[in-house]
């Protein structure tokens, strides 16, 4: 192995992926792209092995290998031409959920296919039964937007207008979608162009050799990490609290982690049968969730390519909430069920590698989506708004306050951008004291965002969790606080849940509630669980938390035995 060439090629390819991402960020239209950065960009070799990726959205990174594999089965590779671009979003063809649109551009060099430039982005509005995606009451995939099997959006460098027309006719915000699709194309164009330069500079056979070495190297690094984890079988369970359409039913996520030598097997047997509502994870999602957990437990500097995933095996029984069968809905699997799975794996490993896990995080993106016709401009608007949660406490530090759940790495949209774009007025954005579970290392805090509706009507839907199932603690740490979504109708002083106010089955996932001018919506996000007994918390940390308002005096007294005033 030529380690100099490996270093150079690896950093060059990761840099290309980052440049693709920057293009996306700078040219896309929806806030979920350009503020929240809910996308990722990667490169694959011609067999479909992921060879480099830029760190944007972790849920997508782990999903790429299966996505590429599934699509390559269906794409007629032989008839591909230079300048073709393939678009795909189908959860039942290796995808994650309908909003996640993947663009593949074949990289041809001297007339031969050498690899793929890939960009995945979350398109906020995808058609279907609710504006902004995430219909919390969907019962089949067709409710969740337009399904796109691998199709050519460009053929030999020319727009395939039939596809464009069909896609844009089926979404509520064609202007925004057009901009986002163009941005994704600009990203794969850049990746393809720059990867061709790499092939020109180093030559095809050298590049192939080095890529092979790079995949082997990542595999070696991962094996060395797994080898250092004590052998054993570790298990844990968590639950998803509702599927949005079935009353009073919760869904089990069961994980059993087998560590043997330098191999790790993650087995989901025992998880609930698939749900009627949209909380199911596709195989792509549950595989990505397993990778996500293992990457969190190992050295973050291992190159993220298909090689590092080789020592990880995932057993995911079909027909369950972790490997859904057609045509059940799955839009919430990628955002809600994924972090629940990842958290359960970390929970299982708490006794084996206590310094590499955390107590439960809030594990939801809150996924508050809305749309309507803007009274001022007459234009249809749609938005996917996501919020942050508290991280779980760790064996060495408190949980972080107000951070995106660990399967995303999205940024929240600034209030000043949000109000300029959409007819809401945000009345407060405030951390919730005591929402972090008490512990030697306290859980992080969630927050409350309260909004006043300024438009005649805004239609809202949501896909969140942990309104009832509390974020668990570890090693004697206490549970964190739950989230909630509350509505106050114009003129009323009462705050009500979506069940109370609109007769919905679930408080945490629902579709198409019409909010009117003067109504208020309050989104409360969950905190994280605590780590270690609160009695062991350093008294000065308790005092500091009290002074800074992270905990109340009651909590200081009852949980931490504080005796001051």
């Amino acid at each position, binding site marked *: 192995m030529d380690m100099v060439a490996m270093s150079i090629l690896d950093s060059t390819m990761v840099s290309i992926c980052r440049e693709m991402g920057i293009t996306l960020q700078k040219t896309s239209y929806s806030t979920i792209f350009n503020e929240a950065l809910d996308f990722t960009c990667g490169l694959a070799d011609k067999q479909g092995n992921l060879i480099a990726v830029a760190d944007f959205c972790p849920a997508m990174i782990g999903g790429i290998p299966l996505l590429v594999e599934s699509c390559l089965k269906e794409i007629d590779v032989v008839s591909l031409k230079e300048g073709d671009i393939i678009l795909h979003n189908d959860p039942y063809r290796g995808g994650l959920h309908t909003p996640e649109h993947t663009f593949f551009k074949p990289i041809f060099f001297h007339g031969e296919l050498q690899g793929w430039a890939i960009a995945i982005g979350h398109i906020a509005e995808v058609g279907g039964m609710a504006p902004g995606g995430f219909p919390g009451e969907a019962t089949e995939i067709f409710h969740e937007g337009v399904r796109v099997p691998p199709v050519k959006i460009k053929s030999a460098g020319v727009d395939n207008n039939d596809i464009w027309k069909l896609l844009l006719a089926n979404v509520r915000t064609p*202007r925004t979608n057009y901009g986002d699709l163009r941005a994704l194309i600009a990203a794969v164009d850049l990746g393809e162009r720059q990867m061709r330069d790499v092939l020109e500079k180093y030559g095809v056979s050298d590049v192939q050799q080095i890529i092979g070495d790079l995949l082997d190297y990542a595999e070696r690094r991962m094996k060395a990490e797994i080898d250092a984890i004590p052998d054993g079988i570790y298990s844990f369970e968590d639950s998803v609290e509702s599927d949005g359409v079935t009353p009073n039913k919760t869904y089990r996520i069961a994980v059993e982690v087998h560590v043997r030598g330098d191999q790790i097997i993650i087995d989901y047997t025992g998880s609930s049968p698939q749900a009627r509502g949209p909380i199911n994870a596709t195989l792509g999602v549950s595989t990505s969730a397993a990778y996500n957990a293992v990457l969190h437990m190992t050295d973050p500097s291992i190159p993220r390519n298909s090689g590092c995933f080789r020592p990880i095996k995932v057993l995911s029984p079909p027909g369950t909430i972790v490997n859904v069968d057609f045509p059940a809905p799955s839009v919430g699997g990628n955002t809600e069920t994924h972090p629940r799975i990842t958290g359960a794996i970390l929970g299982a490993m708490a006794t084996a590698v206590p310094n590499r896990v955390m107590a439960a995080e809030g594990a939801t993106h809150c996924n508050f989506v809305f749309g309507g016709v803007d009274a001022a401009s007459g234009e249809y608007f749609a938005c996917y708004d996501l919020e942050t949660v508290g991280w779980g406490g760790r064996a060495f530090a408190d949980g972080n306050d107000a951070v995106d759940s660990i399967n995303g790495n999205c*940024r929240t949209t600034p209030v000043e951008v949000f109000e300029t774009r959409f007819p809401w007025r945000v009345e407060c954005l405030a951390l919730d004291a005591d929402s972090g579970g008490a512990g030697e290392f306290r859980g992080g805090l969630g927050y409350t965002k309260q909004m006043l509706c300024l438009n005649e009507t805004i239609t809202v839907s949501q896909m969140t969790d942990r309104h009832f199932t509390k974020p668990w603690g570890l090693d004697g740490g206490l549970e964190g606080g739950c989230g909630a979504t509350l509505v106050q109708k114009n003129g009323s002083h009462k705050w009500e849940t979506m069940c109370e106010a609109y007769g919905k089955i679930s408080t945490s996932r629902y579709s198409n509630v019409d909010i009117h001018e003067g109504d208020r919506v309050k989104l409360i996000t969950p905190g994280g669980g605590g780590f270690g007994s609160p009695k062991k918390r350093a008294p000065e940390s308790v005092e500091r938390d009290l002074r800074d308002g992270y905990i109340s005096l009651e909590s200081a007294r009852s949980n931490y035995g504080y005796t001051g005033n």
Partner: protein
Amino acid sequence: MREDNIVGVDIGGTFTDFVSYDATTGKIENWKNLTTPANPIDGVLEGLSNIESMATVNKIRLGTTIATNALLTRKGAKVAYVTTNGFKDVPFIQRGDRRSHYDITWIKTKAFVSRADCYEVAERISALGEVVLPLDELSVRKVAQAIRNDGTIEAIAVCTLFSYVNPQHEDRIAQILAEELPDIPISSSFHVLPKWKEYDRASTTIADAFLKPIVQESFARIKTCLDDLGIGDKVGVIKSNGGESSIWGAAATPVQMALSGPTGAVVATRTVAELTGIKNLVVFDMGGTSTDCATVVNGQENITTDFEIEWGIPIQVPMIDVHTIGAGGGSLAWIDKGGLLRMGPQSATSVPGPACYGRGGLEATVTDANVVLGRINPDFFLGGRMKLDASAAHRAVARIADKLNMAVDEAAMAMLQIANNNMLGALRTVLLQRGLDPRDFTLLSSGGAGPVHICDLLEISGIPQGLVPNYPGQFSAFGFIMTNARVDKQRTIQQVSTRFDALAVDEAMTHLVSSAVSELTEQGYVDNIHVQRSIEARYLGQNHGLELPVDEASIDTESAARLWQKFHEIHQARFGFSTPGETIELVTIKAVAIASCEKPHIATLALAEKSAKANSSRKVRYEGGWIDTPVYERETLLQNHVITGPAIIEESASVTILRPDQQIRVNEYGYMLVTAKSAEGK
């Protein structure tokens, strides 16, 4: 004797560098001494004692790390934060993302303010600038009372929602607080950064307040010391935009000093562009622990508002876009768990330093590799003022070579190549990630270590030409004697092309220009002022603007139409597509006021009559093996001298290693231009 000496002083981490220009003789001199970290002015005074007569000094410009260090070490004021009801947690919530993926040990970056010191007042302005809730002045006086009772607050930051649209509430809050608490300095967001996105504006305003007492105090001390020398009124300081400011002007908004020192190399690079006519330059300034990269495009430095002092802590005042990476001569070699050789980001720092420094360092660094490979002469480091221990370098690299089962020189070569690859990453960041094509650029190297690496970097970066300036080791301080007084102003004005209120934008621009100009004149810079205006625009819905210069005298419907047309063209050029007919959104207006200062006249070299002569030779390792390489002394080189590789060009603070396939031509100012041999005669 005329009073026309200009002195530039760059207070760095290890050395304080001095460059002086004597207009009478045209002579430029440079020297350095150790920095005195506890009281940096002591090191400055030591260096200034080299100047024979202070009476000849007309201007002294200081690049200072006072603000940078206060931020990095978090030694600043205890700040109170005052904001709109419901939003005091904005500095703690931040943006919700994390520094990197998969790092379970990550701890969210702490705000520069405690939550207990945050206060809310009743008021609200809408996105359109209307008063939704009038300011409750009583609530402001209550906050003042609470701050007074607290007794520990040293500075106040005020940032209310949408103050960039309408600052009336924020201004009134600051006014009341100033009345109530006359001894506490106040920073308000509209004056520090009138741009949207409340967290970014709050973070910048808090940093400004955090710096105010310490910067004001330390500037007062510098002023007193220089007053004693009779040059207190001749001093200017360098801001993060690379421009000079009066000392009290800078102290009024100290956050503008967040990145002062590294800007000197960029200003110096712009000077090189002006002198040589080479319009596009990328500078890499390589020191012991870090390397700064920046570009000069079409003769202009690149100004950014995306700076973060730590991950997640934005400081968004306009400043020169300098990208810093933790790779330098002191970067350590190590072998990871997959058996791969890596360089840095851990560094040997100045103590103990690389193994070859002989101060007890055992681990191999980039500098050690350069010694093993014959690139750095152990007997002529810093012009011979510091002897290096070549055998210690050899032993350190041998330890890495053993683990890799390689020969020592091969291991050293691999170390060098991997270190160069890290620097290539930084070059990609400032070029390709900003949409710039390396093939349009000239690579300029500075810092003591820069010229050692420039030729290898040319080879791997696709940049066709290199340039080694004079005094590469004091390049930043040289920039300071070449700079102007400069004020950068920006403001968010949200407008769309389809409902464009040209009059409102024109008014706002006029106001912005006059505030930039008056900031200059208030500081005493009244001559040779010129103004640059531009706007930042994007397709409605996009989040990142493209900058468009505004050349026409006023903004009206017709000139706006020409701007939109220009926008489509620039978007096409930058991103490869445009959407004609699409609505365009104006986001930010920008005004830059520059008062041109008197510039040194750079002398030219005599024409070479004979070819350059090497005075010795030594063996240097290249990819192909060891080659006996002639050594030239830089000070003997004359205009139009051509040296073909392989060659070594030594000077007191640096050394340039020319590869066998390259050549150097010396231009009229003594700059060495490096190209491939095949480019000969072009």
